[in-house]
């Protein structure tokens, strides 16, 4: 998949992953990797940026397997930001699909399931 496309949606995927439950870094990387193939190194800078912008809160929790792990928790601002990203993504997806459908002049089968 194109790296720029992945970069665009990576934020939304991360926010959605943490919205369900608090996660630590490695766990979050594995969760995101289920959706898109992403460089592991890029997740941590993204987490750091979202934390600096107060969309995430972090706390340490003891682990039986090693040192304490830093967990990420989605804040209220993060939830709002995630919702706005989802709306933008849905709108963008709809517009792109519509555009592709018009250009191709084809049917739904040609443009895929997006409509």
């Amino acid at each position: 998949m194109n790296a720029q496309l992945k970069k665009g949606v990576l934020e939304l995927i991360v926010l959605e992953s943490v919205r369900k439950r608090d996660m630590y870094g490695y766990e979050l990387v594995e969760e995101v990797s289920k959706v898109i193939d992403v460089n592991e190194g890029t997740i941590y800078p993204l987490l750091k940026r979202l934390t600096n912008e107060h969309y995430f809160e972090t706390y340490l929790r003891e682990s039986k397997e090693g040192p304490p792990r830093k967990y990420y928790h989605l804040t209220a601002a993060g939830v709002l930001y995630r919702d706005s990203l989802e709306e933008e993504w849905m709108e963008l997806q709809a517009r792109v699909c519509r555009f592709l459908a018009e250009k191709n002049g084809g049917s739904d089968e040609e443009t895929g399931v997006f409509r």
Partner: protein
Amino acid sequence: MKKQEFLDELKCHLKVLQEEEQEDILDEYSQHIEMKIANGLSEEEAIKDFGSIHALAGEILEAYHVNPEYEQEHSKGASRRSLFAGGQTEEPESRRHVGAVLKETVACAGRAGKKGGHQILVWTGWLLRLLGTPFRKGKMLWCRWLERRKEIDREGGWIETEDCAEGPAELERKDEALGNLILLEDGLKTGEKTDGTSGRSVITGKHQRKPERSRAAGWLQALGGTCRRGSLACVRGIRQVLRWAAEAGFWCCRLAWNCCVVLASAFSAFAGLVFLFLFGTMAVLWGQGFPFAGIVLGCLGAVLCFGSLAVFGGTFFWRKRHEQTD
């Protein structure tokens, strides 16, 4: 590449960030590598998944709103190497920081010394005048005593007082008169006559007195005058001693108070200089991006506070009141 090498190189790229942030990031990557190793990967494989360290560091710096290209752009033509060249600069950042701090410190010290020098001279003058007060007082009393002695010598070693106006010359005349009376009485008893050529006055009968009684009365009178003069001198001396004691006590209290004021002002000046130094240092560091705004403001407040105490400490001096004479 081993884990420690990776972390060291990454830290080298992130040196523009605060130390705590660097440690936080490196801990997270270290933990991630350890988990991957625990899942069966080797160190090299775990690190390889991160990709290029330069690109990774660039993304991390972007997360902190730091332009990763800034260092590279501003280092063109300079002797030191860029941040992403992966090496140490020829002129370390810390050395430039220390140089700037020292330069600012020396400048601040020079300005403070120039301003404080005049104030120190003024204080020294006050202190010397204060310490010289008892010597001036002693000299004045000594001169007054010498003048008094000269006056006594001019008056023939006798001080006229209100209670006793009789001087030694008058007493001598009385003694001489008494002697003449004795001689006259002796002459009358022996039948001799006196005349005016002998230099002795002729005393008529109504002025005749018994010589023993007159001499005793004169001595008693002289003794009484002497006692009166002695007691008056004692009272005057005791009064003078008490006055000196009161003045000495007053002077000691004033000296103690003024010493306290001087010490407090000196301490305030010293504290002001220390906070001025801190203010300069923190201001430089603040200008370089460290979050020291609060410390800088606090230091500024302390400098103003202690500086005011040091400068206006002189107003608390206890000065001697000079009585105005018409």
